[in-house]
């Protein structure tokens, strides 16, 4: 008798749990605006009724998507990725057709070489003329046929001048023993080892086995100065964990905005320029793609938040730069995301190095192993 009551109460629990789930699901779907029907059948290859499939870095806010939908007149299905290789995998997968995608330098190189992109007719983009000349014709797309630059920046050094008094003008200066445990370094195989290449006097995109090995050894020498590897280290500077940041200009900007006494250095060896661009995967809905790209590079979209716009992101639209100046941010902050032309002249782009990437990975694993033994002691 006891058992049946227990069994009954258990069954009741199951029942209640299931009904709660169903109520919640119903409530949420009731709150749904738009045409999302939660159907089980998958989406067809061509987007139905003015839809566009977007593949981009994570972090585009919902409000941003809504503004873009407004400007383009299309419904946007936004899929995010967190690494460029994920982007490549998804872009090349036959199970999904994306209409427009965000990408960067060496991946764009790889995609064009494998014939996975549609050519872009820039005359169809009314806002194209606003893009500053300095961003155009990069080494991976000299004729501007395959990509539309969206934002760019460099990998520089941000220093908290309240704590660090020594002079820094180059990547090589980071090896100063006075900086022990002070540096937050970018956690990226290619970027870190390529900086090692520069400091060793070699090409940024070196593919020679011995040169790569030497880069690894150089970075290993830096390990005592490295407090942590991180891709977004601005918080570590702000909460005092470290005082030197080797990171992207966008990340550095976030920290510099809040710090009192700081300096941002574009290294004398030449900074690494990165560029986020939009590409059109093969087979895309071209009208939708053009509409989207034109909207996303427009001044209207980029400065929709007025003074709250993130000026640190280095948008390629020249009008955005003008607005940034007008908003009253200091020239120093402007120089982080909009550096002067001589910085561009000396900059290095990351290019596709084919099989040499394997060597970079191996060397990087070794560096990490050595780093591990140091902190286990």
């Amino acid at each position, binding site marked *: 008798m006891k058992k049946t009551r227990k069994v009954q109460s258990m069954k009741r629990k199951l029942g209640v749990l299931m009904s709660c789930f169903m109520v919640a699901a119903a409530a949420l779907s009731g709150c749904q605006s738009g045409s999302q029907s939660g159907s089980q059948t998958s989406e067809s290859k061509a987007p139905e009724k003015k839809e566009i499939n977007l593949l981009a870095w994570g972090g585009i806010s919902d409000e941003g998507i809504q503004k873009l939908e407004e400007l383009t007149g299309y419904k946007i299905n936004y899929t995010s990725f967190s690494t460029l290789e*994920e982007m490549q995998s998804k872009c*090349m997968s036959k199970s999904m057709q994306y209409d427009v995608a965000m990408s960067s330098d060496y991946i764009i190189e790889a995609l064009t070489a494998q014939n996975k992109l549609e050519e872009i007719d820039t005359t169809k983009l009314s806002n194209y003329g606003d893009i500053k000349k300095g961003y155009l014709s990069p080494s991976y797309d000299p004729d501007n046929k395959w990509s539309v630059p969206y934002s760019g920046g460099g990998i520089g050094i941000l220093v908290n001048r309240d704590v660090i008094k020594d002079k820094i003008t180059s990547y090589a200066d980071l090896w100063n023993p006075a900086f022990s445990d002070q540096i937050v370094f970018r956690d990226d195989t290619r970027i870190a080892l390529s900086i090692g290449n520069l400091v060793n006097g070699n090409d940024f995109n070196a593919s020679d086995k011995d040169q790569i090995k030497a880069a690894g050894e150089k970075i290993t020498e830096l390990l005592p100065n490295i407090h942590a590897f991180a891709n977004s280290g601005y918080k570590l500077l702000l909460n005092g964990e470290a005082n030197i940041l080797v990171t992207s200009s966008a990340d550095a900007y976030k920290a510099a905005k809040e710090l009192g006494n700081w300096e941002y250095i574009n290294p004398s060896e030449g900074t690494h320029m990165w560029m986020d661009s939009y590409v059109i995967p093969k087979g895309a809905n071209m009208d939708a793609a053009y509409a989207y790209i034109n909207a996303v590079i427009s001044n209207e979209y980029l400065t929709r938040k007025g003074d709250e716009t993130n000026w640190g992101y280095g948008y390629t639209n020249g009008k955005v730069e003008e607005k940034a100046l007008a908003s009253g941010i200091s020239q120093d902050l402007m120089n982080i995301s909009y550096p002067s032309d001589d910085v561009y002249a000396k900059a290095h782009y990351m290019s596709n190095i084919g099989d040499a990437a394997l060597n970079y*990975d191996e060397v990087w694993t070794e560096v990490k192993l050595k780093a*591990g033994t140091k902190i286990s002691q």
Partner: protein
Amino acid sequence: MNVEEIKGNQAERRKEKKDQAGFWSSVLMTIGPMGLWTILFFVFPFIYIILVSFCTRDQFGNVVYEFSLAGYQMLTRQMYFTVIYQTIIRSAIVTFFVILLAYPYAYLASQANKKIQSMMMIIIMVPFWTSSLLRVYAIMNITSKNGMINSLLMYAGIIKEPLQILYTDAAVNFGMIYCALPMMVMPLYTSLQKLDPSVLEAGRDLGANSFELFLKVIFPLSIPGIMGGVVLVFIPSMFNFFVVDALGGGKLIIIGNVISNQFSTTRNWPFGAALSVVIMILSTVIIYLNNRLSMKAER
């Protein structure tokens, strides 16, 4: 033999055949669905991984379907052996502490008032329905130089300079233990629940004290639960590279990092697949041993 006996034998054999058929159809009905599913949706990917591990890649990182031992050859570098070895040690340490921490809670839950048992289980699962990334970030927050722990210690005057808690070996281990706890509590609880209180009473009547009771009665009976939890903790912890990256400041790696790199930045799928095959063989051995141990404990 007379006719009746022959007919009897035939009838028996027919019945046996019918029983056999009945047996197999019953087996199919129960195990069939899962078996079919696993074959369809897992065996293929499994074979695919093994296939890729014997392939090579082109200059863009795409898989080239030609036979090659390049993936396995890379494995033979001493460095990767070191990483695998370190990963196993770390996972073993983490698993040990998880068992230590989870056991009392699972035991208490199994002995508690029936009313609150399910509540005790739900309450430990709930944190894990929030993203593990967010929780790890919260842990980073607490353990940083200006974080809660250091602030409290400094405020209480116990230390003068903030301690370096974050980005240490211990922090990483703690993070991994933290993420794995409910995976051990669940199976342990389920197994301890089956404990017949009369067995414990009998033990006490025979003069055993609590400690002996635990060692000789409770613990052995809970071994299947422990083993169930070990599989859910030990093996996934070898792939938990996110925690290692975040709490180790990117200065520690486990084999999970290396494998994940092969599928992302480096685009060396054959090598990543080869590493995965090795780890999966290792894991299968562990599961197999685990099952043997459980079966022994059953007897």
